[in-house]
């Protein structure tokens, strides 16, 4: 039988085009995957099958950048375990298997978004910033100045760039949530999009709500299929139901998932 719709998800071997260590244990990986580059929207992710090392499960990573002309997509990831370690050892020319694009991305209809990110959460936000073509500002937080290597990546893509560090070594001392109220009051943002540690996102969502601004959050949960089939990634929604991060998310309206 013929499939009811054109396939929207692709699985294919992708050649590594570049791999670069951006900061200690943080890597920037570019792979050749033209169909996925064409389809992937900001906020979506892929499931990588790392072929060295006999992994049973794929590893989810957000799409950090897309180059439709070159037919490539890029990821930024931190080495935290076996899978990301093996991933970081791939050399240009080697192969990684990519399944994607998966899930739903950020809403694109806004005119003046504020991006709020921390840690690896900044990776999918980078693609969002690019897709917004300068319309977005960004607020990013890190423990130290060193962790804010992200600034260079966002600088060209965003209007303003606000920074916080826990130790005050760069930008304002404190958390993103320390400065967020003031930024929201001064700016005329029509949406806040956030990705990072859950505790940060909860704080951001609360502040956005207080300011009457819609907020979108991007969640993580361990995944097996990435396709909505296995229910590994179920989360609670505020209406007492369950949703799947891989299929219904990873981007959710904040009020749907944070009480």
């Amino acid at each position, binding site marked *: 039988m013929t499939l009811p719709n054109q396939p929207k998800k692709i699985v294919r071997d992708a050649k590594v085009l570049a791999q670069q260590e951006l900061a200690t244990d943080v890597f920037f990986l570019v792979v050749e995957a033209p169909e996925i580059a064409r389809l992937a929207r900001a906020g979506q992710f892929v499931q990588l099958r790392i072929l060295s090392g006999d992994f*049973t499960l794929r590893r989810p990573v957000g799409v950090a950048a897309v180059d439709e002309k070159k037919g490539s997509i890029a990821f930024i990831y931190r080495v935290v375990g076996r899978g990301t370690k093996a991933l970081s050892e791939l050399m240009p020319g080697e192969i990684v298997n990519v399944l994607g694009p998966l899930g739903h991305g950020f809403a694109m209809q806004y005119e003046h978004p504020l991006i709020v990110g921390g840690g690896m959460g900044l990776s999918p936000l980078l693609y969002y910033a690019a897709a917004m073509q300068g319309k977005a500002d960004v607020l990013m937080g890190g423990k130290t100045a060193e962790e804010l290597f992200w600034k260079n990546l966002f600088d060209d893509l965003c209007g303003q760039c606000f920074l916080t560090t826990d130790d005050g070594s760069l930008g304002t001392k404190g958390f993103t949530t320390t400065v967020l109220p003031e930024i929201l009051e001064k700016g005329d943002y029509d949406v806040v999009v956030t990705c990072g540690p859950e505790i940060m996102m909860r704080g951001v969502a609360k502040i956005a709500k207080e300011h009457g601004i819609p907020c979108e959050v991007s969640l993580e949960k361990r995944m097996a*299929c990435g396709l*909505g089939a296995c*229910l590994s990634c179920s989360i609670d929604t505020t209406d007492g139901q369950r949703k799947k991060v891989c299929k219904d998310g990873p981007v959710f309206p904040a009020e749907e998932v944070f009480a």
Partner: protein
Amino acid sequence: MSDERLHTNLLGIAMQTPVLTASGTFGFGEEFADFVDLSRLGGVMVKGTTLLPRRGNDGVRITETPKGMLNCIGLENPGVEHFLKETLPRIQQYGMNVIVNISGSTAEDYGKLAGLLDVPGVAAIELNVSCPNVKEGGIVFGTDPEAASAVVRAAKAHTKKPVILKLSPNVTDIVAMAKAVEAAGADAVSLINTLLGMEIDIHRFRPVLGNITGGLSGPCVKPVAVRMVWQVAQAVHIPIIGMGGIASAEDAVEFFLAGASAVAVGTANFTDPEITMKICDGLTDYLAENGFSSIEEIVGKANPGFLGFPKDVQKG
């Protein structure tokens, strides 16, 4: 690729190939429609269904283990009514055999579920009596021959569909379980469900999974699964659907040679969503290279004690 050699008929169900997908790993099939020709599968054993909706377990639900994984999904599902009203009509369009995997807390639950599912569009019922992730009774049905038999009888009393009993590997004597459910009227057995396991987070000093223990699946369990299929094939006269760690055509062949009439693929769908199609291709090649014209010719071929079953069971 022509599937001629793979056409089979099991329990009266015409199957384009003897390759099915295992319950809980393949959703309702539709999630894999971009990667798999669903009608080419022997059937899709859909996600475990219960009378009432279930929320499943909280916290971390999966973790990777050496050549395998643990899961404690805990039978999250929207309930049988939702399945009948929303899901079944929607997935009909794919032209696949839908085998519904059901779970209950009492034998009566299974009877009710079987009755409700005795509708067109359902090819067979698979009784999950062995889900290790559910507290109330699940594990007892799966490890006690008497309790499992009662479940089979209850289901058989309420449906004309073929009833498949899914065996748990967490037992001392898999043969006793299989014989008991055969005697109770099961039309086939499927095996194995997951092995009960767990993992501990050594940095947080606590189990990784929200439910503490979970079900082990994937290539790591294959040797146990093949052994159990082998033993059961020597003891019962009903067909066996073999599963547990199948990730290649070669793996599948082991199960056929041991005595399985069909196989189901679970965890490997996560590694490669196209794997079932590759397994079908590989099976055709294997049969051709070895001069076999049908899958039936290799069922039980390595197992001298294979009992087989009346031909009409297979031919329907």
